[in-house]
């Protein structure tokens, strides 16, 4: 799940972005991991995550394979956390996304006490992760730094688009769709809340942060890139 690592932005821009994920390792602790992964997701719900997901089925907002045309006027935009929990059917990476540090800290404490035996990582600003670990009474085991984007960076889109699209590090949120949603919000054709739902459905592992995305879209409405 390097897909949570290279989000575009500075530390301040991650103030509402805390991804806590659990993963098992083949040959080490995947046997009997499924109920423990499900328990991880269940434990996250009381702390009001803004997204939940698993790497095989996606997040709490999912596309429909058979959409009723009336959905164009009355589309359900409610995240379905229980569907994520119920849909988990094999050991994979599972994630809970929070929009505030206190919730992430409290969740991490609960996970530590549950002693699931899974590798648990937190992806956010470096300071934010340190504070969460400190509050949960955890000494960091390892740290993976993002050094950002290099090489032919002239191929990248503008910073507003980049901030939105990199919230799916697997690249499932196209830069052109992120740009289109920013434009639609600017034009008043959709609200940031609606635009964020369209984007979230493309994230295939549920680590997209709709709260941070909404803030970026709202910001992009008023500011130039």
């Amino acid at each position, binding site marked *: 799940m*390097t*897909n949570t*690592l*290279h989000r575009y*932005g500075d*530390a301040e821009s991650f103030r509402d972005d805390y991804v806590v*994920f659990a*993963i098992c*390792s083949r*040959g*080490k*602790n995947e*046997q*009997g991991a499924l109920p423990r992964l499900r328990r991880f997701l269940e434990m996250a719900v009381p702390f009001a995550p803004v997204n939940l997901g698993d*790497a095989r*089925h996606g997040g709490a907002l999912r*596309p*429909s394979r058979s*959409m009723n045309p009336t*959905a*164009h006027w009355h*589309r359900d935009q409610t995240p379905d956390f229980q569907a994520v929990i119920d849909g988990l059917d094999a050991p994979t*990476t599972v994630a809970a996304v929070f929009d505030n540090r206190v919730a992430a800290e409290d969740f991490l404490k609960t996970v530590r006490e549950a002693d699931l*035996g899974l*590798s*648990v*990582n937190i*992806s956010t600003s470096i300071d934010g*992760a340190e504070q969460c*670990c400190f509050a949960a009474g955890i*000494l*960091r*085991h*390892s*740290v*993976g*730094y*993002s*050094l950002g*984007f*290099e*090489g*032919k*960076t002239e*191929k*990248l889109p503008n910073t507003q688009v*980049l901030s939105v699209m990199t919230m799916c*590090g*697997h*690249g*499932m*949120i*196209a*830069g052109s769709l992120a740009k*289109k949603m920013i434009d639609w919000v600017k034009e008043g*054709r959709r609200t940031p809340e609606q635009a964020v739902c369209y984007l979230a*459905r*493309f994230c*295939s*592992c549920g680590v997209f942060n709709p709260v941070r995305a909404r803030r970026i879209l709202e910001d992009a409405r008023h500011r130039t890139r």
Partner: protein
Amino acid sequence: MRINPNKCVACGNCTYVCPMGAIYIDPVIKRATVNRDECVECYACFHGMSQEHLNPTMVRTMRRIFQFFRLRFDPEPDVCPTAAFEPEDLVWPRVVRRAFSDPRVPHESTGVEGRGTEEVKTNDVTGRVGEGEVGFTIEFGRPGVGVRFHEIQKMTMALAAAGIVFEKKNPVTTLLTDVATGEIRGDILDEKIMSAIVEIKVPVARTEEVIRMVWEVEKQVDTVVSLGIGARCDSSGEDNVVAPVLERLGYHPQRAKTNTGLGRVTNVAAEAPGRESVGARQ
């Protein structure tokens, strides 16, 4: 991926959702069409868009009427109104595109979804990166640019020439024909993928050397590179080894993923932790 021309109504929704920009409305046939050379088989169009099952003839007629009166057609932007996307049975070497682009497909070599890597995410149970070592994840094509394997090979060959070992449990490593030279199998070199991660580890003392090597190769590759560095924290949970090197080289990391060390080996007959690397001069 293919778009069934008998179903497509050329609404254009899919042209925006393709991460590679490989879908366009063909002006001759007036249907959405996939540029197969640029398509990385990520399935974002198929999996990400909701599907309606409307009658194509009816939708085309409505669109013509709207167009005649210059009325703006404003449907939901993430919907294919006629479920026109049809996955193909991919064969080698094209199947490698999907393996490195569709995150829902676990890599056969590692059993991990996404880009198929574990890195330091499971370091607490694998011991992959130990104290005094630095793990690198050099990812090509991300975000949203894509890459062909012949570009990645420039990096693997440079690393191999420097005697650097590759992580064994990594999808790119499994495609090397010779880990001593860093050559990637020839039949996939022109295949385009969303992104791939080359994983290596070196002693801390070689950190700066590797970063400078990456900088040099980056100038030669026609894509973007996302660089990540993983380190084992000390007994007080601090990293006082790698961070100073990064600072000296002008990096000011803002974001990191932190392994909390809560994992443990629970399999009945688990493999013992140890080095899992292959390379020229082990």
